[in-house]
């Protein structure tokens, strides 16, 4: 519990975020269940508001943001660099316990009064509603510190702890993605922190910054909030893309196509991502010129994502692909993120957004990106590195079945929501017109299939931990450094100091071990 070993901290983070995922997922299933029929089923409107707020807040702040960087990144990144640990091991430990403190505060806010503002805490509602909004925003403030600590640690690690011979363009692409993520974590999170402080001050002392009744400006809150929260979307998706960039070359047995473009596109996404926040405010009072510029920049940020997609597909072209579980998740990612990204372009177009704003179309879009993108990539990464983290192989057949169920259930749940949204079904209501009932019910059935798939995947992975240590050092034939040490790695990661002679993913110089699949 007081270890400073990055591997053990990564595993501690992993259990913590998986627990958060479970809690957030239960709220999601409850929300979907309430939507089986129009009108009140088993939740009142107030309870429904609290349920979707907690689903959103827990999934965003407690699960997705720390999931890949703090859990998998913590474990894998120093190994990939050939380092003994991250640059600041004690800061890493602090980050974990600050996260736990923030999580406890979030749970407390549920117990002492609930929060019904949505995870975005928009003013003026958030400054006037009752409940435990202050506690929840304070928890977000504290969780921000955890995120900043991780970001600072990772940037310093990538700069100073690379193995001899590892230049910037010999870095594995996972490291590039995590590095770009860390830049956003460091530069965006403080703004969220001060925004939460201002919101708390407005609630407690009526300081007059966000409350229009006393001379404040509610739209200013939206600007502050999205200045963090749109870059935060890239905090969530960049690590997902980073995992896909590892899985695809490994299971294609092929040098990745367009290495430099994939690496630099991560940084481009991180930088342009800071300039697009205004596209969340096309309908909330913003000048036509500003809206046009934000719309243009939104189209611009799609280009680096497109570059990645085409490079991944080009890597797979005519390759000898083996469809193990991580690769199945990676291919699911390509399809689902493709849909999620493309619908993001629709929403970035000014006139289309006026029609689709605050409908289920938006809900479906960001679930395709966050769940279909990040969570699917997280699951892929979990199955990819599980043998390395715990030294045990899971049942491949069961894992594939779980992946198929997740894919089918996900599409059942959210594809329907695109249709409902384009027909005008608004988000965040606990009831709806009768005409939407078939689609809503289909979506709820889908959520059960999705839940069952995730449950099977969890049982399969956990069950493997009870079995014997049977994982080879390099079960997939991966070329990056983490596969060159034992499974699980020794305390100092490597027996000696590894050095780099070739670019990553260069299968010309790499003999695939005989015990790899």
């Amino acid at each position, binding site marked *: 519990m007081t270890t400073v070993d990055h591997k053990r901290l990564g595993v501690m983070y992993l259990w913590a975020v998986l627990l958060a995922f479970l809690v957030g997922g239960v709220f999601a299933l409850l929300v979907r269940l309430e939507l089986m029929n129009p009108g009140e089923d088993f939740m009142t409107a107030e309870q429904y508001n609290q349920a979707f707020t907690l689903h959103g807040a827990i999934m965003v702040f407690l699960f997705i943001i720390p999931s890949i960087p703090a859990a998998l990144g913590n474990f894998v990144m120093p190994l990939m660099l*050939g*380092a*003994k*640990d991250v*640059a*600041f*091991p004690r800061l890493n430990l602090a980050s974990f316990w600050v996260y736990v403190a923030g999580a406890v505060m979030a749970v407390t806010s549920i117990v002492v009064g609930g929060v019904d503002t949505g995870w975005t805490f928009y003013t003026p509602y958030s400054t006037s509603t009752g409940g435990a909004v202050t506690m929840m925003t304070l928890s977000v403030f504290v969780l921000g510190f955890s995120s*900043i600590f991780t*970001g*600072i*640690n990772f*940037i*310093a*690690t990538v*700069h*100073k*702890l690379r193995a001899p011979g590892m230049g910037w363009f010999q870095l594995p692409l996972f490291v590039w993605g995590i590095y770009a993520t860390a830049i956003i974590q*460091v*530069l965006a*999170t*403080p*703004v969220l*922190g*001060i*925004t939460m*402080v*201002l919101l708390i*001050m407005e609630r*407690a*002392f*009526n*300081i*007059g*910054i966000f409350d229009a009744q*006393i*001379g*404040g*400006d509610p739209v*200013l809150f939206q600007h*502050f909030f999205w200045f963090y929260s749109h870059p935060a979307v890239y905090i969530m998706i960049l690590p997902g893309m980073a995992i896909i960039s590892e899985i695809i070359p490994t299971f294609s047995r092929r040098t990745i196509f367009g290495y430099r473009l994939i690496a630099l596109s991560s940084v481009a996404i991180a930088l342009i991502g800071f300039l697009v926040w205004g596209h969340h405010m096309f309908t909330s009072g913003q000048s036509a010129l500003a809206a046009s510029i934000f719309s243009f920049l939104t189209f611009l940020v799609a280009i680096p994502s497109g570059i990645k997609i085409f490079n991944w597909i080009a890597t797979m072209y005519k390759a000898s692909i083996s469809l193990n579980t991580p690769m199945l998740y990676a291919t699911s990612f390509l399809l689902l993120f493709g849909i999620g990204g493309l619908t993001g372009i629709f929403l970035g177009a000014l006139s289309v957004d006026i029609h689709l704003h605050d409908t289920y179309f938006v809900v479906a879009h960001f679930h395709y990106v966050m769940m279909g993108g990040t969570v699917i990539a997280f699951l892929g990464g979990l199955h990819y590195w599980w043998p390395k983290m715990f030294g045990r192989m899971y049942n491949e057949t069961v894992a594939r079945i779980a992946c198929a169920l997740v894919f089918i259930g996900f599409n059942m749940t959210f594809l329907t929501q695109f249709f409902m949204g384009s027909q005008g079904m608004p988000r965040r209501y606990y009831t709806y017109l009768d005409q939407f009932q078939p689609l809503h019910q289909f979506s709820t059935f889908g959520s059960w299939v999705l839940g069952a798939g995730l449950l099977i995947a969890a049982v399969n992975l956990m069950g493997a931990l009870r079995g014997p240590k049977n994982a080879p*050092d*390099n079960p997939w034939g991966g*070329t990056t*450094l983490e*596969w*060159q040490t034992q499974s699980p790695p020794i305390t*100092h990661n*490597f027996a*000696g*100091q*590894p*050095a*780099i*002679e*070739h670019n990553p993913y260069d299968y010309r*110089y*790499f*003999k695939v*071990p005989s*015990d790899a699949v």
Partner: protein
Amino acid sequence: MSQAHDASLIMQDGHGDGHGEGHAHEHHPFHQHHFTTMEQQFDASKIGMWLFLATEILLFGGLFVGYGIMQSRHLEAFVAGHHHLDWKLGALNTCFLLISSFTMVMAVWAASNNRNGNKRGVLITNLLLTLGFAGGFMVVKYFEYSHKLHDGLLPGKFFSYTGPDAVPNMFVFFSFYFMMTGLHGFHVLGGMGAITYLIIRSIKGDYSSEYFTPVDLIGLYWHLVDLIWIYLFPLLYLIT
């Protein structure tokens, strides 16, 4: 397993637990085992500190942006509010912080040139001076705050000033005044704690030209706290 080893990396000897033969220097007591050299450790810490300072600038940045927008919205109230601040006390505090930045630089210089303890006295003296000026800043701030408290010039709903020059929305100015100087004040207090820590370790003789990272990093932090005040002073005390 061993095939993979041959293929893409070579294992070099040494550095088993930070005690290998590859070290240029002897093992320094503050050398952490996961860094190869003291220079690498110093550089990494410095990058970390600069990143932390970047987060500080963005944290205050939110307040500065909010101040700018609210000032343009309630210009009259902000000008009327600032007449209740004493620019002479603000200028005095600016001097305190500027001089303390100089003594901090001297402390870093002394630490980085400290060989066999020959600059230890200079180091401790300058750290004590820095702490003294920081304390002076807080004392002046205390008198300013208690004056506002007495007049009812307080943020938000606690604003109760009813003098002849009271204008609508004056409380917004004092909301920002107390939030900005308050957050800055917490940073000064934090800096004083950090400098006290440096003094204790300097007396123990921990810092030398081989290892002075904490002095250097807290020095950087202290300059940022100073710099933020340099912006706060004209924004709050000198507007027209």
